[in-house]
């Protein structure tokens, strides 16, 4: 079973747990497992959310008493809230706020399903995509960025971003060489990565910045 087939039966899986084949896919595919976990969480939260916005009968009684005290509710007329208070709590209808919250939850649920595209692992993890947070620049790189910031703030961001990319390139290539010192491609890649960094430094320090 692939991710597409799995998505087609997703509502049934959320509801019933799925069959053996679907369970097997769920165990082996981190992307689908994460999605199912998210959807189950949303469903749980949705169930908790609606009763939370349906106040207890005491609240309605209190409001009605206040309105009577303020003479805003005449004797002989029963307010909508008054009707509500006379209905036993389990059979009570949802409030407008409850309906709105339900609609929001359903919309959010639909959006998650519509926008879900499984991220299948196509490449091995690299230093570039391993961490979501940008790696801080250190030592010489920081000094270089200080110089660029002073002399050409317009291109500071471009240098910073590309310096990080090049550092990730060097890290990846170095790790590949360490894994297999005989790998000619990895060795050439490491050389290229260092050439890229050399170019960044030269361009920041030699001619182009006025």
């Amino acid at each position, binding site marked *: 079973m692939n991710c597409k087939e799995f998505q087609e039966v997703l509502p049934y899986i959320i509801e019933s747990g799925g069959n053996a084949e679907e369970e097997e896919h769920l165990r082996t595919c981190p992307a689908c497992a994460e999605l199912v976990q998210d959807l189950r969480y949303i469903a749980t939260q949705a169930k908790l959310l609606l009763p939370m916005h349906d106040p207890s009968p005491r609240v309605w009684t209190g409001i009605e008493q206040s309105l009577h005290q303020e003479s805003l509710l005449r004797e002989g007329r029963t307010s909508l809230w008054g009707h509500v208070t006379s209905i036993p709590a389990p059979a009570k209808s949802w409030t407008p706020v409850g309906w709105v919250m339900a609609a929001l939850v359903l919309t959010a649920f639909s959006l998650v399903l519509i926008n879900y595209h499984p991220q299948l692992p196509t490449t091995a993890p690299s230093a*570039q995509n391993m961490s979501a947070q940008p790696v801080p620049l250190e030592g010489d790189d920081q000094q270089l960025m200080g110089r660029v910031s002073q002399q050409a703030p317009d*291109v500071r961001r471009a240098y910073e971003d590309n310096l990080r990319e090049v550092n990730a390139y060097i890290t990846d290539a170095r790790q590949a060489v360490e894994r297999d010192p005989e790998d000619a*491609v990895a060795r*050439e890649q490491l050389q290229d990565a260092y*050439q890229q960094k050399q170019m960044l430094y030269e*361009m920041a320090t030699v001619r*182009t910045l006025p």
Partner: protein
Amino acid sequence: MTRLIFAAGIGSVVALATAGALALPPVLPNDTRNETRMEIAADGTVNVINSAGVVNVHPGTGRQVVVVYTTHSPNLEVDTSTSPDRQRVEIRTHVLHEQKLSPEESRVEYDIAMPAGASVNVSTATAPITVDGVSGDVELSSNTGEIVVRNVAKAHVHIRGIASAISLSNITRGHVEITSTGGAVQMGGVTGPLVSVGTTSGNITYKGDCSGGGEYRLTTHSGAIDVTLPPTASVDLTARSVSGSVVNDFPLQEKSHVSFVPKAGSSFAGTSNSGSSSVELQSFNGRIRVKKQ
């Protein structure tokens, strides 16, 4: 009826004038247009340093370098000089008294006409560079400005960019070396004894026949490499990626001897026709694709 035609005519004139005014760049009070002519030796070099604005280089006539430039601030000037032996012409944008200029004020637009055979070096920070039809060597670098080179033959073309989009077309019998960190590199009809392109994250696109018995080397860390070859291409091709995918849709004959063991999906090797040019494609985790034109 006459009134109607008259009104329509007036309306058309107003519309055309408005469109023309919108199409032209605004003329600011401090705009100054200058022209400088400098003698240069037949194999001389023109060096241009400009931060922002535009640099356009094209062929001229005679033995003079003709520089037309427009500045937008009195606090900025253009220095031009020629070495005594006329081997070197220097053109440099210079901010006076370390003034702080606005982005618009710091712009200088250059139009440079080059004598035949003279080489050109241009460095910019954000200014785009266009070189079209020159006959000497070309060396260009920019931090973020777009770089375009067209119609150059039998010359060295060396380009360096940080985040510059780079585009080369109709470069024949060239010695082409491009290093780009984040900018994409596009090549159409680029051939010669050496075509070497290296990027970190910039995509590389090559369309052409890799002719000339040359060495073509395209390498990237995480960018995609797309090569489109005609069936007549005579290439000895290898494509390898450390952890990216490699796809071949071009008919190749299997090689009897290769220096590595091809691995389906991450490397391949083969020849087409007589395999006169060496084409080497390498990535770390970027996708490589070779297809038929």
